[in-house]
């Protein structure tokens, strides 16, 4: 007999109230499934059964309050009809990694009837947790029919396998067994592995998977939350906006000279290096003032013009990216912008951005030039309607005014705009404005 006690739900907690029994005496319980609920100061807590067996007796009725560690029920373990399943708590066994991958691990969940009867032993060893939590009923059915849960498509919450799924699988197997068809060949290459590494079928090893575990051809790991978010946003943006990209070549020679002149002074005085990005940001802010529709967003059938020019600067992180926002970018000098860029990028990488520093952008700039890219077609940062891509600034031979060839610092700027709202002509005027500010840089004071 296993005693079930009132658990201590916190240091200062000395008692708890049983609010509801989820099992009746005589009913079977599985280890870790919710057995009863308790209540302490506005918190309801589900308490899992400490063992598998039969709920022998309930000692504390619903509504009763007892001190912690009071025995509230007893579970009779000997009454277990079948051996407990390999019960590892889900937390200890991550959903996608089983400790020693059997050849089956490489198979996708869609393979029809993959030689299950031939390998009962292996199936029994397969941790059920590999496909997420299973209800006791489903576990029992899987055990009885010697099924590998990974071969069954779950239709329950979160892809969970339900009783119906198991029944459907069994029915389908029975149908297939009845139909005259060649038996599944064990030498068939594993489904997902073949999909991941395209290979002619002839190259597939002629060794049945049972013989010995092959070296894994793929490795599966869950996407990080950030990766998932990025994926969502990229697709959302592609679905939302009519993306068009226009590319302009800008002569950065004047800016390059300004930068040369002030570089060491800025480094000494402020402790950061002066890049091209704040010049381009400053030019973009001026162009946004001149063309407010590029600083707008769409809400339903309305155009929302933003009176503030808040420019997001894409920052590459180790495994993703984030777009912190420079507020009122048009009110900042080149030095002020450089300071903001350095500060936001540093804090983005050390993950110290405040929540309101990644919200409220009205336009974005992404500087792939710093990774050597000449140009690219960036994706709009929703709900904005345009994004400026900055290519690498390079010295290049350029034909200048009187048909002479000169060495100039040039760079390609690309603007991806939402063609729902912005016409091509306007997008190009906007780019011409940026180009003109940069090529005729007149601000002597940074």
């Amino acid at each position, binding site marked *: 007999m296993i005693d079930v006690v009132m658990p201590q739900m916190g240091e200062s907690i000395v008692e708890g109230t049983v609010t509801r029994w989820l099992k009746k005496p005589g009913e079977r319980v599985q280890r870790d499934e919710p057995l009863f609920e308790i209540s302490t100061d506005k918190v309801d807590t*589900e308490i899992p059964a400490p063992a598998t067996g039969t709920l022998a007796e309930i000692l504390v009725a619903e509504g009763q309050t007892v001190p912690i560690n009071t025995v509230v029920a007893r579970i009779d373990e000997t009454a277990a009809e079948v051996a407990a399943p390999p019960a590892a708590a889900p937390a200890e066994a991550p959903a996608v990694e089983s400790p020693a991958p059997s050849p089956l691990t490489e198979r996708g969940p869609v393979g029809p009837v993959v030689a299950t009867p031939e390998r009962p032993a292996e199936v029994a060893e397969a941790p059920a947790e590999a496909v997420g939590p299973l209800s006791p009923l489903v576990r029992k059915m899987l055990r009885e029919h010697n099924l590998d849960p990974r071969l069954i498509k779950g239709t329950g919450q*979160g892809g969970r396998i339900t009783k119906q799924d198991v029944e459907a699988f069994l029915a389908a197997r029975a149908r297939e067994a009845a139909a005259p068809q060649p038996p599944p060949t064990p030498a068939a290459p594993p489904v997902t592995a073949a999909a991941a590494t395209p290979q002619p079928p002839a190259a597939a090893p002629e060794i049945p998977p049972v013989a010995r575990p092959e070296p894994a051809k793929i490795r599966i790991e869950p996407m990080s939350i950030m990766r998932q978010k990025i994926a969502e946003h990229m697709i959302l943006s592609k679905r939302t906006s009519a993306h068009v990209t226009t590319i302009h070549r800008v002569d950065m020679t004047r800016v390059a000279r300004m930068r040369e002149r002030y570089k060491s002074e800025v480094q000494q005085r402020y402790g950061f290096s002066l890049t091209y990005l704040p010049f381009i940001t400053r030019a973009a802010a001026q162009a946004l003032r001149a063309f407010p529709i590029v600083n707008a967003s769409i809400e339903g059938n309305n155009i929302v013009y933003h009176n503030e020019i808040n420019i997001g600067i894409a920052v590459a992180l180790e495994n993703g990216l984030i777009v912190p926002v420079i507020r009122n970018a048009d009110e900042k000098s080149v030095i002020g912008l450089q300071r903001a860029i350095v500060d936001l990028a540093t804090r983005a990488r050390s993950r110290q951005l405040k929540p309101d520093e990644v919200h409220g952008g009205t336009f974005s700039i992404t500087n792939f030039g710093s990774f050597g890219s000449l140009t690219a077609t960036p994706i709009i*940062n929703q709900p904005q309607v345009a994004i400026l891509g900055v290519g690498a600034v390079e010295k290049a031979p350029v034909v200048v005014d009187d048909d002479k060839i000169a060495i100039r610092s040039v760079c390609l700027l690309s603007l991806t705009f939402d063609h729902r709202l912005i016409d091509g002509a306007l997008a190009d005027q906007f780019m011409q404005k940026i180009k003109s500010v940069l090529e005729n840089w007149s601000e002597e004071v940074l």
Partner: protein
Amino acid sequence: MRVCQWRQLGRIGYGEALRIQRELVEKRKQGAIPDQLLLLEHPHVITLGRNGRLENLLATPAALERAGIEFFHTDRGGDITYHGPGQVVGYPILDLRGWRKDVVAYVRGLEQVIILALERFGLRGEREAGRTGVWIGGRKIAAIGVHVSRWVTSHGFAFNVSTDLSYFRYIVPCGLSAPVTSMWELGVRAGSEQVHVALVEAFARVFECEMISPVIPVEQAR
């Protein structure tokens, strides 16, 4: 430092929010996702906790239906409460083993989050002994009701920002006949968005975690 992801879900129905919470709780238990803080608001709805008494509902189901208010029995702690537009609802899905294995400390923590957020707007929230929630001048501004399963939390708090308080006439809030209040009633005309930011920052301090905001990606993966 532990990571907590926060999401703004906008206005969503109570049933839908329950479904999302259940899904996230499952994933949290499996360790597939980090802690979560969901911020949202509900359309008009009255919910009765597991230990709630139906006599605290002062209107008939028919009257509620006429007023466009949904009614739900739910599995959180606490009695009866009202949610509606203008009320910021927070549902943290936390694995308390990563913080403190103490459900009462957790509830005090939620109160502290609200108190710190109120501070940002110059308001002083108070605790009242034996009456969970946050109070200002004897009126309740935020209600708390929590569910815990294997140390993973769900449900959370309901914080009146610009709530139309007249809807509380249908119930005896949390079974107490004390009056309710809102930030707007106290003269602070804050918007939900500002309150979200204040709550997120307070949450990071109280639960000692790093709040990861939704990532807004830009560059095409190349």
